[in-house]
């Protein structure tokens, strides 16, 4: 059985996304492991001695859930339906979304708390403790991101890593060394399942 077979299509609310495998007697379901392949996806992208800790989706989900003022940043690689539906599901939990690149064009009509932002400018603003956020209601204590051109995201968050106190978690398909925590490099089906695991941890609206 491949891992992809664990994933079933979203229901309309986008909340229930991962089906527990129908376990045969005495057989444990295969768990998603997002800590493997924790090496920078771009082979030369090794910033220095401090690189992201590879973690499981539940950890990322709990971090997001516990944050006082989290922000989800998504970019130009979220337009495919399977990924987009997970962004929407996260947004539907009330999580504020910064749509960078051209992400907004797939998110603007979904009734979410979504704001267009330029990723480079956003990184700059996030490093400014005086910035009051995309909605003017205060700065953020944690940002999570995925679906942004890999090297672009990696560069932008290197600013946060080195010049801000904000916690940065990558829930991307790729290992991001400049985040505080990240998944390893994942196959698409595992990535989708991991996003679903993250979503499960988010508070229901």
């Amino acid at each position: 059985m491949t891992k992809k077979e664990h994933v079933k299509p979203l229901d309309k609310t986008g909340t229930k996304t991962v089906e527990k495998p129908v376990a045969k007697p005495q057989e444990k379901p295969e768990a998603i492991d997002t800590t493997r392949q924790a090496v920078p996806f771009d082979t030369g992208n090794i910033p220095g001695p401090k690189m992201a800790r590879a973690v499981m989706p539940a950890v990322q989900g709990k971090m997001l859930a516990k944050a006082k003022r989290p922000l989800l940043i998504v970019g130009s690689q979220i337009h495919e339906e399977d990924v987009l539906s997970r962004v929407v599901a996260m947004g539907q939990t009330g999580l504020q979304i910064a749509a960078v690149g051209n992400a907004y064009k797939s998110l603007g009509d979904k009734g979410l708390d979504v704001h267009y932002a330029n990723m480079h400018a956003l990184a700059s603003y996030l490093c400014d403790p005086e910035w009051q956020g995309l909605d003017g209601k205060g700065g953020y204590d944690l940002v999570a991101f995925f679906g942004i051109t890999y090297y672009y995201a990696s560069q932008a968050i290197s600013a946060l890593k080195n010049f801000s106190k904000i916690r940065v978690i990558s829930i991307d398909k790729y290992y991001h060394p400049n985040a505080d925590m990240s998944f390893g490099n994942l196959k698409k089906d595992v990535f989708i399942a991991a996003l679903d695991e993250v979503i499960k941890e988010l508070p229901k609206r």
Partner: protein
Amino acid sequence: MIVKKGSFVIEGLENVQINIGKIGEGLEEKIEGPTPRPEIISLRNWDYRILDRYAPVYTPTSDMCDYCTYGKCDLTGNKEGACGIDLEGQSARQALMTSIMGAACHTAHGRHLLHYLIKKYGEDRLIDVGPSNLKAPLTETIMGIQPQTIGDFLPVLDYIEEQLTQLIAAANTGQEGSARDFESKAFHAGMLDLLGMEVADIIQISCMGLPKSDEKTPMAEIGMGILDSKKPVVICVGHNIAAPAYILDYMDKGGLFDKIEIAGLCCTAHDMTRYSKSAKIIGSMSKELKYIRSGIPDVLVTDEQCVRADILREAKKLHIPVIATNEKITYGLPDRSNDSIDTIIDDLASGKNEGALLLDLEKVGELVPRLAVKMAEIRKAKGITALPDQEDFRKLVAKCTKCLQCTRDCPQSLPISDAMAAAVNGDLAPFEILHDKCVGCGRCDYSCPVGIPVLNVIEKASQQVIREEKGKMRIGRGQIGDPEIREEGRNLVLGTTPGVLAFVGCGNYPDGTKDVYDVVEEMIQRSYIIITSGCAAMDVGMYKDKEGKTLYERYPGRFIKGNLLNTGSCVSNAHIAATTIKVASIFAGRKTKGNWEEIADYVLNRIGAVGIAWGAYSQKAFAIATGCNRLGIPVVAGPHGTKYRRAFIGKPYRKEDWNVLDGRDGSVINVEPAPEHLMITAETKDELMPLLAKLCFRPSDNSLGRAIKLTHYIELSEKYLKKMPDDWHVYVRNEADLPVAKREQLLKLLEEKGWKIDWEKKKITEGPLRKVDVSFQPTNVPRLCKEVKK
């Protein structure tokens, strides 16, 4: 009368000889501003004004510093290293070093050309750039002199070289430690870069018959599919026209253009076509390895800049001799400058030598065509083929294990294994798409664990599209002439021409060359003035509309709205920046000589010009951008631009950053964020287009101009991002600023935002940040105010 250097005997006076050496009269008399020949801190106050508003944003590629033997030092989290520098300082130091490298490249290029041209034409050769009184705007603004002859540029290059030495010294461990001052110095290097480029292009235009502000230059053929590979083929690679000019002259004299194909790769190609109508263009640096691997060239001639470091190794595999013609790139080749042409040809043809360093350019001119003829026969007889045949191709794609290592090594993360899988099933379309997106670096070859020569496979699969790769590019025109500035300057300053967009730089595009074409087409249809140069100019000409016409064939090349201009090669970038100086001088009557700060202040506040380096990869591109930034011109790079590690991004939410002075009385006016950023990146072309429209806003726009700019900003955002911009209202000062077609709808939206509207008069009565004042004289420089308000 021009007084020439030399010796003169006066009739009637025996034994009297007058020797005239350096002629400098008049050059110092016309200085109009406070900073002729600025030293490295002369313009620091101006730099600080910029940095106060557009704070540097650092995105390090490495958290380490390994500049000295104290290190490696871990600077993560902005820690200090052993020498005391923190990551912010180190990042700024890298910005300085990058700018210096770029400036040195262009200046050394200019020095090489000047040395060669003075030797050939003498120092007294007059400058001739076309219909301009302001012949060398950057030289005048920086140096405070008005050069008349090419010899007048000698002290200019001396100045740049001296300043660059000072700047390099500042980067040594134990020297500068302030990020802010590193950035000021980087600005200085960027400004020197613009100056070095101007010298290089003006002297070659003046001496070598290159087009002189000609809006109707002929079209050049461009593309990987343009050459007749049955003929001997000479390919020149790099940026410096000196050596290719000799080859072209020799071919011209010998009537060889029908017998031998000659084309260029990268900016040398630009200048070859400016020099000779018979030269052709293969394309940008991204085509370099691809074209060599095609096996078509019979001789490769290198000069300087943007030449691949592996060109000799690659050429050797295909028995293509390399003739290096510039001291900066010698590849360990034997210096054959003093040997006979026949001997060199024999050694290269026999394979005894894989190439030759040949610094005698006259010999290069004769040797290269003769060698090409000989090598074509030899290579044909040997049956040298570079790309795999059909059977090998089939086997190679079947070997792919889909490990994704090639994708991980690819600068564009291209889905190569998916294309391999499709090719196994006979579908070559994914490879053809990759061919356009591939920057031709060849890293995939090294990464493949089963030894697939990936780049060759991509190119083999794309033979059909490569054969059809034939475009047209209007040959580089050089400067924008004064008459054109007179005609258009007013529209630019008032905003009724929505902006000047300069597409410059290299081919490291995030999603293929077509994006540049698409963006240019969209913006030119919206009446922006589009200026191109370098590899971007080439890529714009690579695509055709349904009627088979390129953009250059569809749009004329005058400096007016809705036109498409190509200034030329990399060093022709100087003319784009210089155009803003011309507008300040010709339209507004601003003094130029030694007056950088005032000119830059004018450009920043009044001229809606933006540079776009969508595929910038080199240090030179960074230096150009940094120089433009010091001149008040914003620049947008593609996503790879974040790897330059430094940007200048404004914070629109910090109202105090957007105070300017009114030059009439020195009063402080809080204005809209215009331009909002000086150096920034975008992720995709969808994001780029509204950003460009936004960066064209200037505080000086009149209402008609502002309405036009606002129209494009809103429309582009709605078209490509599917949203009304969040900040559109910030740029509204009164109802006349609103696009006429949407005025009522926008007034309603403003009312929803809490603005007060008098619906009877359809007027805004409360809400805008400031009012429109047609006499407003925005400036960031207190000394430029007529009367400083206390």
